[in-house]
């Protein structure tokens, strides 16, 4: 029995929705309650379930198009069922009089209409004052142009739009929704892009940090007055090894593999609204004291939200440390357009087998798990493995190169 897939009304304020993504294509078999597309309203992106099982015979509304609720956007039917009348009626209701019935052309026209609509939207006028305000508030101008119905956008319109966004927390049917905008969305988009583009490959090793800890407490206290942390040591070692193994200090940009001559370490700092990554420049040419000072300075600035744009641009390799949260091990997503990211876990006191004077025995040691995520387009397993090997070497026997 043929049925329309319609644009659902998902809130009492919703009167139109945008087709974001069809999860199935024409000809696919649809199961009962299977999610077949995603739509977007003012508030969020929502999946839409099929109204019945069958074959997705026709897609009537393409991706990016916005239409009123309750209008047909697709047809599910049996494989051989005649749906001609349904198509004609749908086309009439959608007011696409020039829409031909056969599929390929239909898609093309859909695209054209969508493009025309986008053009119209983008041609909307925005006053300089309004543009400046929108930028200030972190609003997406293109999105705003699509959403607002006025021909010219003034500051007042921007302020109202922003207020509406902030105000929309609707409690309905056991869910609370807030707009996915601003910093959250920016970070989300970037990480999605990284994960979906770069084939991630992960390697973990356990590092015995006992000697490093001792070094910090006993030896360095006497020599250096400032407080040096384990993290500082990790940064120093990372910078050094990267300097020695530059194959991991690169990016894939515009069809070229760009190898950086400097090591600029990104330091992942967790803030309430999201992740900030200030950049420690020329980490490979700094000594422990200078590196520590700079790292602490940047992290402080990040926490105070006082970082300037140049402070969080230009990193070549990122280090993320979640040890203080008791995380043993994790696989971070690479910070694009870098080639790799180092994830540091907590230092745990656990019983381990060590060798003393040629004899094996069990001792309680400080063990820290270090994981590297690499972009397999740029870095092979062996390169990553070698990197980790040296990281481990220096961290386990730090005295050799620090003093």
């Amino acid at each position, binding site marked *: 029995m043929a049925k329309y897939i319609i644009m659902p009304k998902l809130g009492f304020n919703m009167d139109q929705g945008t087709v974001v993504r069809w999860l199935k294509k024409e000809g696919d078999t649809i199961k009962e309650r299977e999610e077949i597309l995603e739509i977007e309203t003012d508030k969020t992106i929502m999946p839409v379930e099929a109204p019945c099982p069958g074959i997705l015979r026709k897609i009537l509304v393409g991706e990016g198009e916005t239409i009123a609720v309750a209008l047909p956007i697709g047809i599910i039917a049996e494989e051989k069922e005649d749906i001609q009348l349904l198509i004609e009626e749908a086309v009439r209701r959608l007011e696409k009089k020039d829409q031909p019935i056969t599929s390929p052309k239909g898609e093309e026209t859909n695209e054209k209409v969508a493009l025309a609509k986008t053009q119209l939207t983008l041609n909307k006028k925005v*006053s*300089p*004052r*309004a543009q400046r305000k929108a930028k200030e508030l972190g609003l997406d101008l293109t999105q705003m142009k699509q959403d607002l119905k006025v021909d010219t956008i*003034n*500051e*007042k319109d921007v302020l109202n739009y922003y207020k509406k966004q902030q105000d929309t927390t609707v409690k309905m049917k056991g869910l609370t929704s807030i707009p996915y905008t601003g910093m959250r969305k920016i970070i989300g988009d970037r990480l999605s892009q990284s994960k979906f583009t770069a084939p991630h490959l992960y390697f973990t090793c356990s590092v015995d940090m006992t000697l490093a800890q001792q070094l910090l407490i006993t030896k360095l206290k006497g020599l250096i007055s400032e407080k040096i942390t384990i993290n500082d040591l990790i940064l120093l070692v990372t910078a050094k090894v990267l300097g020695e193994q530059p194959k991991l200090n690169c990016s894939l940009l515009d069809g070229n593999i760009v190898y950086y001559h400097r090591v600029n370490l990104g330091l992942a700092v967790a803030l309430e609204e999201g992740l900030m990554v200030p950049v420690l420049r020329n980490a490979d040419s700094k000594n422990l004291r200078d590196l520590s000072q700079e790292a602490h300075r940047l992290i402080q600035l990040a926490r105070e939200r006082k970082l300037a744009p140049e402070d969080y641009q230009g990193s070549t390799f990122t280090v993320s440390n979640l040890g203080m949260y008791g995380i043993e091990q994790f696989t971070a997503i690479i910070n694009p357009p870098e080639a790799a990211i180092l994830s540091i876990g907590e230092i745990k006191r656990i019983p381990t087998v060590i060798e003393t004077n040629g004899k094996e025995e069990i001792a309680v040691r400080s063990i820290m798990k270090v994981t590297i995520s690499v972009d397999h387009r740029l870095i092979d397993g062996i390169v990553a493995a070698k990197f980790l090997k040296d990281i481990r070497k220096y961290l386990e026997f730090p005295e050799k190169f620090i003093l």
Partner: protein
Amino acid sequence: MTKKITYAQAICEAIDEEMARDKNVLILGEDVGVLGGNFKTAMGLQEKYGDLRVKDTPISENSFLGMSLGMALTGLRPIVEIMFSDFLLLAADQLLNQIAKIRYMSGGQVKVPLTVRTTIGAGRSSAAQHSQSLHAIMCHIPGLKVVIPSSAAEAKGLLKTAIREDNPVVFIEHKMEYNQLYEIPEGEYTIPLGKANVLREGSDITVIATSNLALKAVKAADELAKEGIEIEVIDPRTLIPLDRDTLIASVKKTGKVLIADEGYERCNIAAEIVMDLMPDIFYDLDNPPERLCLPNFPLPFSPALEFPLIPDQQKLYKKIKKIFEG
């Protein structure tokens, strides 16, 4: 303490006070002596100061303006009255080629402490050649300061400063104001050049209005306030030098600007003000800048034709309302 006198009397007081204060100040022009000025701006002065200091001239604008330059270069501080700004065109060479330029051409050897008073404004059925407001031309030529007061109190204070100024000043009076009564402060006071006056504060639109349009704008403001539109009225007072800072601060606040001036629309002083301020206000503008001026036609004689053309309180009200409706 204030007193109520006419705009013409206020100007006469300014001239009188300055002539009493400085024996080198004199006034010359057509009908200033025996008649006391065609607009009564020099009443009683000739009896008080004598013929040499209050001089009736023949109808020789170009030359008596040129003479005033010769006087200014040789120790005197003349005030020249040119009856209508239209007649300044007869003296264009002396005003624009000589007076405006002589200090510069001499490499700074001389200063020219000269005040040229003239009148603008339509509304008396004086037709095309006696009703123009040509101050934009005075602004275009470098070397002249241009002062354009709104009310009688403003005129008195600004004229005294203009007379004391050691540079050529063109002082623009509005002929429809001369017989109007105004409150002016008692006693001696001056108003500095180059400092605009915010007549009324508002947050919705900046209205920069010259001469008596500033007063009309304030009246229109009350009507507009009833509709919830709060306009900020600024009287620029001097066009050269222009108080950019006050104007910019206002536009930054409101995001909208309307300039009202009685000159012809084309090449109106409004165009210059907007361009002058534009680098500092572009990103603050919510709407394109607007202007209310005379249309680009000579002024016709019949009141039925003339009055609908002149910018006034009603037109200001309508124009501003339209901006907020759109």
